[in-house]
C-alpha cells in the first residue's frame, strides 16, 4: 500500500519561485543487511524520481542504498503558466508509482 504526500502551491503569480515537497512511502532496504541465519536481505530501493511540468522535466534524482526510508524531496521551480506536475518514482522489484498536482498561475 504505497502512498505519497505531495505539496504544490495551488496558486502562484507569474515568475514566482515555488517550493515543491514530496514524500513517498518505501522501505529502502539497502541490500547490505543480513538475517539472523546469515542470508542477505535483497536490495529493495527506489532508484529514480522525476517531476515533469506539462511533459517537460523540471527535476530528477537518482537514489542509492544510503537513502533513508520514505524518501523526501524538496525542490524549487519558477511558475510561468498554469498546468499539471507529474511525479514518478521507479524502483527495484517493479516498483512504479505516480502522482500529480495542478497549479494555477495568475
Amino acid at each position: 500500500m504505497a502512498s505519497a504526500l505531495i505539496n504544490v502551491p495551488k496558486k502562484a503569480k507569474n515568475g514566482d519561485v515555488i517550493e515543491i515537497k514530496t514524500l513517498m512511502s518505501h522501505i529502502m532496504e539497502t541490500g547490505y543487511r543480513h538475517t539472523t541465519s546469515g542470508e542477505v536481505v535483497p536490495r529493495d530501493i527506489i532508484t529514480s524520481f522525476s517531476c515533469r511540468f506539462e511533459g517537460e522535466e523540471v527535476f530528477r534524482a537518482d537514489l542509492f542504498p544510503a537513502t533513508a526510508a520514505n524518501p523526501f524531496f524538496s525542490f524549487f521551480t519558477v511558475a510561468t503558466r498554469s498546468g499539471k506536475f507529474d511525479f514518478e518514482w521507479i524502483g527495484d522489484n517493479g516498483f512504479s508509482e505516480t502522482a500529480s498536482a495542478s497549479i494555477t498561475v495568475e
Partner: protein
Amino acid sequence: MKLAATIVLASLLIAAGIVVSPLIATEIPVSERKSGYAFMAPETKAMQDDETTNPGMLWVLDGEKLWKRKQGSADKACADCHGDASSSMKGVAARYPAYDKSVGRPVNLEQRINLCRVRHQESDPLPYEKHDLLALTAFVAEQSHGMPVAPDPAPELEPFVAKGRDFFMHRQGQLNLGCTNCHDDNWDKHLAGSAVTQAMANGYPMYRLEWQTLGSLQRRLRNCINGMRAQNFNFGAPELVELELYLMSRARGMPVETPAVRP
C-alpha cells in the same frame, strides 16, 4: 523532656523520609513535565510539524483507506459503524488505554481495534507492529491530534495504574535499573549523546528516525526493557498495557502529537 521527645520524633521522620523518598518523591512535578518534542532539534520539530514532511502521515493516509475497507465475514468497514472518524474518533486516543468491561482489564488502542475486528467485523485480529494495525491506530489517534491527554477515569482502572507505576519504579534486569532511574532522576541528561527525556507517551504511534518506520508505544517499551537487560514481554502483554496506563497518567494534559516524529 517534651522538647527532647519532639526532636527524636522529628529526626525519626526525617530518617524515614530519606529512606522512602527515592521511591515516592522522585516523580517529576507537573510544572516540569514536558513532551519528548521539547528535547528535539529544530529540524526534527519542523519535520513533525509539517504534514508533508512528517512520514507518519503516510500511515495515517493508509489508515484512512483501511477505515473504509469492508472486512471479515460481517463484511463491514470501521466506517459502517463509526461513520466519519473525524467526529466519532475525536478524543478517543487521548483517553486510551481504557477499561473494557467484558475482558475486565484495560485495553490499549491496538487491542480495541482488534477486539472490534473480532467482535463486529468477524475477522482475525491484525498482528502487532505490522503495517495495517499501525496504520489504523495512527489514523484513529490522529483524530485526537492537539487534544490534551485525558486518561479514562474508570475507578476499575486504579489497581492497574498502580501496577504500572510499580513496574516503572522497580529496579530490574541485569543492569538493576528501574524506568524511574532514567526518566524521573536523569531526564535532563544525555545517554550516549541522546536526550534521556521524561517518558511521556503522548505521540504514539510515532515515526522514529532510528527505526525508519512507524512504531507503537509497546515497541518503545520493549526496547527500553531490553536495554535494561530485563525479562521482556510479548506485544499485548498485560504488564505492558499497565505500564502504558501509568505513562498516560504522567502525560495528562499534554497535547496528543500522533503521529509524532522522534530521533
